[in-house]
């Protein structure tokens, strides 16, 4: 009778040990998988943030190029206005300037 009881208890203990062993095995597996998953998460997180930063950087440069073009166009337009003014002012004075230079050359030799 006692033997039977002890045998039942030993069986229960064996089963308990097996359960614990299985749990430990599973725990190790979870940690091993987590370690692999952690590398993936690391790479993914790193890549995602860097991707966003590169996009932001590209956007900044793209905007700068557009701004630069706008500024260049403004300066070109300003140059065109200046050239037009120059031509208009010069047109009124060409004959007078030519006459004065002519006189200066002649008087220099006279």
């Amino acid at each position: 009778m006692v033997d039977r009881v002890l045998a039942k208890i030993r069986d229960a203990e064996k089963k308990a040990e097996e359960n614990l062993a299985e749990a430990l095995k599973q725990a190790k597996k979870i940690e091993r998988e987590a370690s692999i998953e952690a590398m993936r998460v690391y790479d993914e997180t790193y890549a995602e943030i860097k991707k966003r930063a590169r996009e932001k950087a590209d956007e900044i440069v793209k905007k700068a190029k557009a701004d630069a073009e706008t500024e260049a166009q403004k300066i070109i337009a300003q140059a065109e206005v200046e050239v037009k003014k120059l031509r208009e002012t010069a047109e009124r004075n060409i004959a007078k300037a030519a006459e004065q230079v002519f006189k200066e050359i002649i008087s220099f030799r006279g």
Partner: protein
Amino acid sequence: MSESRQEALIEKILHDAKKEADETIERSRKTAQGVLDEKREEAKKKAEGESESLVKASEGQARSIVESSIANSRIRMNWVILSEKEKIIERVFGEVKKKLREFTRTNEYDKILESLIEEGAVAAGGGELQVHLNSYDCQRNLALDQLSDNVEKATGVRTMLRKATDPANTIGGALIKSKDGKVAVDNSLEAVIESRRKDLEPKISTLLFTKTD
């Protein structure tokens, strides 16, 4: 031990084992989650640090793009304006040449032509010299003997000025060459203009581009 106590004991053994097993798994799940969180944070920190540098660098690049574009455009603008001024100044020289050509058809020009010949001959050092004139000026009666005397006095070298047979392709003035061709002085009107160009350009610029109204 009664059967019910045995059952209770066995039940407890199994229950405790299950509890411990569950706790072990739960602990490792928490550890796993901790590792994941830690790695995620680590990646985030590293990437954010690098990203900040990347964005800063691109902001610097952006400033440089805009500044260099503005600087280049201003240089181009100044060049366009300068080039336009040069074109207009060149037109004035064209007009001056036209006026000089007309002037060479007047009697007042004789005196100037003689002065150019004399000056050129003195610069050539006197001697036997050929005076190259354009075909129109070749027809003029020039006091070459008197001019030869003047050059002789100025240089101390016996001087003989003669009209060259081949005409010069100029609007006026004279090219003076020694007989052997070794000495040549260009005193054409074009050369006179060119010699005075540097002095004249700023004056012309002021006359042309200063607003009078």
